[in-house]
């Protein structure tokens, strides 16, 4: 054991009486001054920390008091405990109420979203009837005949001035063809142009 450790044990009074007497007998003046200084530092620390120690002991007392109070409540008859439980329930449902509020807010948002989707969805319109006849638009056929349209109907409306014969239905079969109108004086004449094979009906550049 070192000398400094013996001095500390002596200061803390952790040595036996015999050991303490031996060490005290062998103390030099310098060691006695060191022990005196340690005593002074200890006094200072204890004085400065007293308030915290008191406060700590106050918390411990309040905890113990609360435990004792709970114990006392548990010992009371049920009839007397009911109001206290209700009072306790007043504390507990706060969180439940918060959860309930969250749910209702969510439901409200969902309802608003559903309403928005419902409103933004375009109303279903009654299906438009398929056109039965397509009016012939251009009197000049293209050099490349369009795709053959089975049962394609082309009808010139009689409101277009001079009524003409009208193509009501045509099936070009496997070869392409086109329908157009050619002016003929005051009237127009419908033309069905077939593209034949192998020497296809050629339309020279106009």
């Amino acid at each position, binding site marked *: 054991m070192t000398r400094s450790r013996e001095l500390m044990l002596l200061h803390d009074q952790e040595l036996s009486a015999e050991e303490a007497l031996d060490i005290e007998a062998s103390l030099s003046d310098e060691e006695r001054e060191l022990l005196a200084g340690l005593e002074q530092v200890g006094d200072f620390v204890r004085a400065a920390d007293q308030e915290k120690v008191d406060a700590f002991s106050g918390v411990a007392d309040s905890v113990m008091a609360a435990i004792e109070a709970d114990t006392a409540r548990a010992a009371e008859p049920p009839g007397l405990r009911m109001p206290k439980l209700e009072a306790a329930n007043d504390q507990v449902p706060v969180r439940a109420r918060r959860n309930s509020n969250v749910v209702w807010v969510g439901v409200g948002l969902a309802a608003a979203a*559903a309403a928005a989707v419902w409103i933004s969805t375009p109303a279903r319109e009654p299906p438009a009837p398929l056109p039965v006849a397509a009016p012939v638009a251009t009197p000049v056929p293209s050099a490349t005949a369009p795709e053959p349209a089975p049962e394609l109907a082309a009808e010139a409306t009689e409101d277009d001035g001079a009524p003409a*014969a009208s193509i009501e239905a045509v099936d070009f079969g496997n070869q392409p063809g086109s329908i157009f109108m050619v002016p003929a004086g005051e009237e127009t004449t419908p033309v069905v*142009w077939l593209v034949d094979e192998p020497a296809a009906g050629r339309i*020279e550049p106009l």
Partner: protein
Amino acid sequence: MRARALFLVAPLLLLSLPAAAGDDNAPQKAPAPAKPKDPKAKDDKKPAAESELATEVIVLHATNSGKGIDSRIGNMPELKKPPFSSYDSYELLSKTRLPLSKDDKTMNLPNGRVLKTKLLEVMPDKEHLRISASINQPRGKTFLPLLEVKAKVGQSFIVAGQSYRRGILVLVFRVVK
């Protein structure tokens, strides 16, 4: 935790409501497209003039042989308009009168195909009628399977484009009495 689960599930449930409600108004099957007029509709009222009606079929041969338009063709302004004007020569090959009836009437074309015409219907005004035409290949293949035309007496329509001897055939149909 339960509250969170509800928060997630509730929007899904509510969003599904419109869809569920919409099922009642689910897009109904599109109605079948209007059927075209029955080409085989029978004209119960058999007009007395039906037997007098006929289709005059004028067969022209269009080429670029420099011969000009055959004088027998008569006045046919369509031949001077595009695309017919791309041919400088038109020769009259035949002029055939096919009586209009509800039975098929046929004629042979110069290219060996067979033209078939048929009266479909005489309109109530007795002036317009619907006729059908088709052109068949020599070996049974159909070249022009179907053509239905509504025309008035005196009006004409043209079927052109069949290749024939370095040119094309131009069939001019005219309803005549």
